[in-house]
């Protein structure tokens, strides 16, 4: 199934929560959804027979300036089609519902996005840092991130 057909079906079912479909760029086209409806949409994408997106290839956090975004790359083992989902939330309140109960692989991906970008995944059972030390401050992959001078008395930048 092509991405625009999936978009039409999602739009018909979820209405407002599915915001736009973009296929103007040279490579991948994507569907933008709102954070509120994300969990239901993902659930439907995994379980409906026409979609069956049972494989979450990648989950990436992104710093979009004023917003932070999360990009989901989905794949279906049975139908062998792909979909890119995007969601954006303001940096002041970066709350996105977790999808770790839908795809267990999202657990570590979400921890990584939280660690590096600072997206707060609501409902995640163990949202702690994964790559940086547990008591690190700041989110290193943000564009406005300043490397701290010292970490526990050790010089960081050199």
């Amino acid at each position, binding site marked *: 199934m092509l991405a625009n057909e999936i978009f039409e079906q999602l739009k018909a079912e979820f209405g407002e929560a599915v915001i736009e479909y973009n296929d103007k*760029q*040279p*490579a*991948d086209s*994507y569907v933008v959804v709102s954070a509120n409806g994300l969990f239901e949409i993902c659930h439907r994408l995994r379980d409906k027979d026409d979609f069956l997106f*049972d*494989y*979450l*290839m*990648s989950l*990436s956090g*992104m*710093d979009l300036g004023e917003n932070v975004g999360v*990009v989901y*790359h989905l794949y279906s*083992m049975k139908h*062998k089609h792909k979909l*890119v989902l995007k969601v954006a939330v303001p940096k002041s309140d970066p709350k996105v519902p977790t999808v770790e109960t839908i*795809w*267990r*692989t999202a*657990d*570590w*991906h979400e921890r*990584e996005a939280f660690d*590096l970008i600072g997206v707060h995944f609501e409902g995640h059972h163990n949202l702690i*840092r*994964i*790559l*940086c*030390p547990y008591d690190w401050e700041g989110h*290193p*992959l943000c564009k406005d991130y300043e490397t701290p001078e010292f970490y526990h008395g050790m010089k960081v930048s050199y």
Partner: protein
Amino acid sequence: MSEKKRLDLEYSQLESDRMRINVGPQHPSTHGVLRLEVEIEGEIVTEVVPHLGYLHRSFEKHCEKMTYPQIIPYIDRIDYIAAMNNEWPYVMAMEKLMGIQIPEKVEFIRVIMAELNRIANHQIAVATFGLDAGAFTPFLFFFRDREYIIWILEKMSGARLLYNYFRIGGLAGDVYPGFKEDCLNIVKQVRKTNAEVMDLLIYNRIFIQRTANVGILPADVAINYACSGPVLRGSGVKYDLRKDETYSIYNRFDFDIPVGTGEVGTLGDCWDRNMVRVNEMEQSCRIIEQAIAQMPDEGDVQSAIPKRIKPPVGEVYMRAENPKGDLGFYIVSNGTDKPERVKARGTSFVNLSVIPEISKGYMFADLILILGSIDIVLGEVDR
């Protein structure tokens, strides 16, 4: 001795305690600097908590500060065992983003390089898995053969491990004279060693007892955890990007996808995962033989390399079948010569996340084998 301690314990008060031990970051069998916090009751593992990040080198942050071609050497260092395979999805993603058509000869050389490196990677994987089980000799057999493969890759690229050989739109250099003969000799040698190791290790009674029915990963759990590569195929799922999402020229070659069969135990156990790797080496040999036979002699490998690499605004997610699974690169371009964001979807990172799920209830010695059968590289886990 300052004072004598009084020991008036009653035996009914004694409790059998669970013990928490740290496996790693300095441990012979964690394949790098991984720390597993393991809770054991006697010898039975009750909980495993992986702690990552000891090898975090800020790959993604580095990428935002560098031009596109400058990123390639850093990509080598993600999975340093199979660096050729790592570079491939990245250059493919860039070629897709910029709409570059690459010459046929480049595709052939890329396939041969990637498959040679896949064999080298699987040799390390099977060898270290045997080492985890206590068999030392197959380890050295494999490392001896891997050396020959590395010599070829060194002659092609100038480096033993971190090749920096693929270019966006081409390659760093053409093949050297005698390349084809070298490759065919390697194929012969690999097959000979594999036959030997089959007797010595794979079908050894003790080895089967150790690995069969251990660390069983059912297919649905594997898919839900987005496992890929031999870990997923070991569970019987016939999923290989070279066939399922054919990229480059893999549709021209005749090869099979080995999957786990549960031949000596349950489907999806450690033995199956290991066996998939052994069988994949044979399939890679077949691909190399066919590619050598079909490869055109003429052609310029650098003709399609663009002078200025400045992709249009856009984003692309590209993945390729790495020896360890599918490695994906999500590249967002903002129209300049530096990327807005590069996300590497590390195979080992995702495959490792299944460890707490499948290692509960097995013995402590099995945990090491399960970890070995997943074949992680910490450079890819922590990036």
